[in-house]
């Protein structure tokens, strides 16, 4: 009988209630509140760790941001602020605080959010979340201690046999282990949600994207362990130095793939902010998810980009790794680059903004910093970051780009103008919804994404041009004062370096506005507990 009834139900397109996609009974055991604005269930344990990780992220963003300003003012030829040793020290600190600490703390916050709230579940383990957070903070402090005390002037990449103090490597290991534990806690949360049947149906797209980021993160962090543990032992004097070429190969398994975690997390945030700000809906779930799967499968081989003009790895290896894998991952980004704005277009047209080709875009909520940060991030990442990345990562073209300023010109449009800006947009929702505090000076917040995006764009384009004149990255004096033979660059390159300084300073102003407003909101902002968040 039952079989027949089910068969009939399927025939008529009906499904029993318990199988209908959506929330079922949660497993929070009382530790939950219902968000006044979205109606979503917020696990209180997860909320605490989202807050903790977001606060840590912003602290390191501040450190990295001050470092960024100092660097911009040093590479600006007429200012040339820092002395050489401090330039390299601050550059090391900038890379680590921004690319590792700010972004990964923020990503852990995103994982805790996506894993719990969107699946109607509690966080799998509170104790584990404490351990992860403690290790990450300890690691972050050890890294900063070593760098700022001048014991680790080795750049973020710390290519052996350049050696830092052991506490530097230990800090990275502690931070990576902490992050790995947090990622496992996220995966365990997915498991208990499934086990406790807190929802039915396929997980939401944002959770799917976050899971893809988590999977890539596990692979990334394992590479980190493989390369950092022998390096740590060597720094203690216990073993011989690891082979310099081997180190570069495996380090980039960590260094490049962690950028793919950022891409994955950023694209998930794009989808999330698209929904939060315009009610956008993915056009085709299969296409969007398929693109995330492409990231997981093919993005790892792109680590080869950093070895395209290296000795010891042959042309066949370089071409294979660059072309085969790279372009399927590029395909994934090109798909997201279409489906994300397309979902906005559909949503805006449904609201009646049908005028011409771009009426929907002009009518979009540009006054909402959540939207403007997200959409500017999408444009900067696609038009500047994506195009330059693929081109510089072409095996032979890398000859005219490797280690020039074209490389930072590229990644400041992916990881800063792209990921960081998207995460700032996210903060404009995290603070009111998770911290339950309202942003002060909303007019300033509305302006912030434009200032930051504008500054970063000017700086990155200037860097790219300077790099195409051969100006090296990570370089204190492009006039080579005191060098054995004269060298240097023409006036156009110097002009570009001036623009790097100006653009960098503008971007810092944008960053500072974000930091001040966010800190003011979190610590002194009006509480909106028990109320809806104010409209942006």
């Amino acid at each position, binding site marked *: 009988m039952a079989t027949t009834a089910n068969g009939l139900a399927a025939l008529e397109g009906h499904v029993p209630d318990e199988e209908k996609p*959506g929330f079922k009974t949660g497993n929070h055991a009382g530790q939950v509140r219902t968000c006044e604005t979205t109606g979503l269930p917020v696990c209180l344990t997860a909320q605490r760790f989202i807050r903790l990780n977001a606060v840590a992220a912003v602290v390191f963003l501040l450190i990295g941001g001050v470092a960024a300003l100092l660097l911009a003012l040093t590479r600006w030829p007429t200012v040339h602020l820092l002395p050489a040793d401090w330039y390299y020290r601050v550059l090391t600190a900038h890379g680590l605080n921004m690319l590792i600490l700010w972004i990964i703390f923020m990503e852990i916050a995103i994982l805790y959010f996506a894993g719990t709230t969107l699946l109607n579940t509690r966080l799998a383990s509170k104790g584990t979340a404490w351990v992860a957070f403690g290790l990450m903070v300890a690691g972050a402090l050890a890294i900063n201690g070593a760098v700022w005390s001048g014991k680790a002037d080795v750049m973020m990449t710390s290519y052996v046999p350049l050696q830092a103090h052991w506490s530097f490597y230990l800090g990275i290991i502690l931070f990576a282990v902490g992050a790995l534990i947090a990622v496992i806690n996220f995966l365990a949360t997915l498991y208990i949600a499934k086990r406790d049947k807190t929802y039915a149906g396929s997980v939401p797209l944002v959770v799917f994207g976050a899971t893809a980021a988590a999977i890539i993160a596990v692979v990334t962090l394992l590479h980190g362990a493989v390369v950092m543990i022998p390096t740590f032992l060597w720094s203690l004097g216990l073993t011989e130095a690891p082979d310099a*070429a081997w180190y570069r190969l495996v380090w980039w398994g960590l260094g490049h793939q962690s950028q793919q975690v950022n891409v994955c997390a950023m694209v998930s945030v794009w989808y999330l902010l698209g929904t939060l700000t315009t009610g956008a809906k993915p056009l085709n779930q299969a296409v969007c998810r398929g693109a995330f799967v492409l990231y997981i499968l093919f993005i790892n081989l792109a680590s080869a980009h950093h070895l395209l003009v290296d000795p010891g790895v042959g042309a066949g290896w370089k071409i294979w790794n660059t072309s085969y894998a790279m372009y399927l991952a590029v395909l994934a980004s090109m798909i997201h680059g279409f489906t994300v704005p397309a979902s906005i277009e559909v949503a805006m047209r449904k609201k009646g903004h049908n005028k011409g080709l771009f009426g929907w875009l002009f009518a979009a909520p540009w006054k909402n910093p959540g939207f403007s940060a997200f959409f500017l991030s999408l444009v900067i990442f696609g038009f500047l970051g994506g195009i330059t990345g693929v081109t510089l990562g072409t095996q*032979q073209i890398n000859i005219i780009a490797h280690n020039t300023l074209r490389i930072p010109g590229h990644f400041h449009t992916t990881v800063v103008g792209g990921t960081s800006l998207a995460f700032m947009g996210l903060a404009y929702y995290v603070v009111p919804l998770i911290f339950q505090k309202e942003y002060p000076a909303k007019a300033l917040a509305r302006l912030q994404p434009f200032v930051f995006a504008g500054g970063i764009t000017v700086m990155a384009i200037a860097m790219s041009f300077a790099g195409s004149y051969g100006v090296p990255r*990570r370089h204190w004096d492009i006039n080579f004062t005191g060098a054995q033979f004269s060298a240097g660059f023409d006036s156009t390159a110097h002009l570009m370096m001036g623009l790097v300084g100006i653009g960098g300073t503008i971007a810092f102003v944008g960053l500072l506005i974000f930091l001040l407003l966010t800190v003011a909101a979190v610590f002194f902002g009006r509480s909106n507990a028990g109320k809806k968040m104010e409209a942006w």
Partner: protein
Amino acid sequence: MSISFPEQGWFKAPSAGERLWIGLAIAWCLVLTLAMPYWHFKGKQNSTGEAYRVTPAEFYQRAQKFIEAYKVGEDRYTAIVQPPPGTDVYLTARMWRWDPVLKLKKDQTYRVHVGSMDLNHGFSLQPVNMNFQVVPGYDHVLTLTPTRAGEYSIVCNEFCGVGHHTMAGKIIVEE
């Protein structure tokens, strides 16, 4: 919405607009993929990564032998070396100098062995703007053909300590 559970049967074919874009994107990815092997066979600039394991001491000895054999002068305490076309040329990178000054003939091909005595360095030929990685423990062979006469600088573009920005060498190309 991106935060909601998709309706059952969400696994379906993309719409016409998406299909068009995905098709174009795949076609473009194919162009990108084929460009590199094409250039490998037809193009003139390729980084083949030809390299041999070598200890810094061994590389130094070979470089010294090379300098002694073809030295034609000295400039700022650095040997100027003019090797016959087609020969093996040795260029040593160390904190923070390039040795020796090379005097090459235009349109002649040389096998330039670049090696490091200490850390990673970056061989950056300016203003031609060609860049290669120099990794300690490896003899990186660049089979180079200068195409224009003039004086060129080799700057280091891999961070190699606090004197990194004073590391510049010279290549002279004669008609």
